[in-house]
């Protein structure tokens, strides 16, 4: 792999940009045998392959992608990155990711455009304030940056914000300055390029259609649209298809898959300096480097694999955006799209071993998977390589649904009384 950098760019410019080679090897067909096969060529899967090769020196690794890499939720989210989760287990996982984000462009020699612009979560009532201040206390204790701003502080940090809007005035907010955004596609491509340079085979348009288990129950092989592959270890990182792939190995999952929509506006000059989230009114917004306002909506209410959702969901989100930022009413929606998010009953991911020896799973990220990409890949690679959960991954085991040791971030933010 020839390095990226300003000098290379200038040199290639002199040759009319003809000297570039493919960023990642993408063999048309897989090899017959691998040490580890990763199912799913999204950011999490590619990161897993990269760390397996880089840190765990696993020799033969394949990433199988049924479509094109990064084409699932990696390329269909609003790219928000933060780690100010309430429970220490979650904060540890997401902050592990943020720490990797902070050096990821250099690590991969690929500009993933990680931009710690600050993520501001708005509080609109007493309950929000109590909840967010609890987050701030918990995060500070765990060494995760998070601070409480009063309403004026929120406006100072995000000048377009109308803190005095009539229905849900802003009473304050929790700000994580290390949070921000990154360029989602570049994350998939950067990991693919770096993994391929370490010998990982990235096979696109290769759909898994079966998983074979031996007499002892352990995985031995899988069949794909491009032939049979023998392997003793399979990592399933197939957000939006997890239940289906796991069913091939006879494993039922505690997951339901919902449509999640997002949209961007037409590009405008810099007007929005940070990321703002409001769970109370369901609005998530930032501005991309290109100038588009990037806006996340909520999930539709019914499970679906259609990558489409109702227009009423977009309306609901834009109503909230127009309340928080009334000058954006004349902005226009340019594109909308849908992803499929796998959600668990406690809204936390599942990372780790399964009842099937040799079969590992990383799923259930719900609406928050992008931010975890490097950390998720990192701990999942360690889990696969060692055959036991990485300490950060351990609380996110599949058996927590039986023991009751849930990590319920959603419930912790629940509104009642």
């Amino acid at each position, binding site marked *: 792999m020839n390095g990226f950098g300003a000098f290379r760019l200038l040199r290639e410019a002199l040759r009319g940009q003809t000297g570039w080679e493919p960023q990642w090897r993408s063999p048309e067909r897989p090899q017959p045998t691998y040490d580890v096969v990763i199912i799913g060529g999204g950011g999490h899967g590619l990161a897993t392959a990269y760390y397996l090769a880089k840190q765990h020196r696993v020799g033969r690794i394949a990433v199988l992608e049924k479509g094109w890499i990064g084409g699932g939720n990696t390329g269909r989210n609003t790219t928000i990155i933060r780690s100010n989760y309430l429970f220490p287990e979650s904060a540890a996982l997401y902050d592990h990711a943020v720490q990797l984000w902070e050096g990821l462009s250099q690590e991969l020699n690929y500009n993933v455009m990680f931009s710690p612009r600050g993520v501001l979560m708005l509080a609109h009532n007493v309950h929000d304030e109590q909840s967010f201040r609890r987050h701030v206390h918990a995060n500070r204790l765990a060494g995760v940056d998070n601070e409480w701003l009063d309403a004026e502080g929120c406006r100072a940090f995000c000048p377009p914000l109308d803190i005095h809007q009539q229905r849900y005035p802003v009473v304050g907010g929790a700000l994580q300055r290390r949070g921000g955004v990154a360029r989602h596609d570049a994350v998939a491509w950067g990991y693919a390029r770096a993994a391929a340079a370490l010998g990982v085979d990235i096979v696109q348009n290769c759909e898994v259609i079966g998983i074979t288990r031996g007499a002892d129950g352990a995985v031995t092989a899988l069949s794909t649209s491009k032939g049979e592959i023998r392997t003793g270890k399979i990592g399933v990182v197939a957000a939006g298809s997890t*239940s289906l792939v796991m069913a091939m190995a006879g494993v039922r999952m505690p997951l339901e898959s919902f449509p999640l929509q997002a949209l961007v506006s037409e590009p405008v000059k810099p007007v929005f300096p940070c990321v703002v989230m409001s769970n109370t009114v369901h609005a998530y917004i930032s501005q991309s480097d290109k100038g588009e306002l990037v806006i996340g909506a909520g999930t539709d209410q019914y499970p679906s694999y259609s990558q489409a959702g109702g227009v009423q969901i977009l309306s609901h989100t834009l109503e909230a955006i127009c309340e928080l930022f009334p000058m954006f009413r004349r902005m226009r929606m340019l594109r909308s799209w849908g992803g499929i998010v796998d959600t668990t009953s406690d809204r936390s991911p599942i990372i780790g071993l399964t009842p099937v020896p040799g079969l590992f799973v990383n799923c259930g990220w719900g609406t928050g998977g992008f931010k975890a990409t490097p950390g998720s890949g990192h701990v999942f690679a360690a889990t696969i390589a060692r055959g036991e959960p990485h300490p950060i991954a351990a609380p996110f085991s599949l058996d927590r649904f039986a023991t009751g040791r849930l990590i319920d971030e959603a419930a912790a933010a629940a509104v009642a009384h």
Partner: protein
Amino acid sequence: MLLIHCPWCGDRAELEFRHCGEAHLVRPADPAALDDTQWAAYLAFRDNPRGWARERWRHVHGCGRFFNALRHTLTDRFAATYKPGEAWPEPPI
């Protein structure tokens, strides 16, 4: 926005309904007799099919009744809605 056929009220817009998860999950008659894994299977583990799904809806902003539906999760099309207690219809070919 889906158009949903309430078995009692007829076709109504999705806004009047609430999705209520997988259908035909019967609460165990004696939960105490289940081990933790079996109980977890009832609580959290779901078919989540890509294809025909049997699911529950409630006409929450209408007659208030729960009913079941057979819906395809790739096309979001309903093949049928039916009342609780009724046998589920066969998926269309």
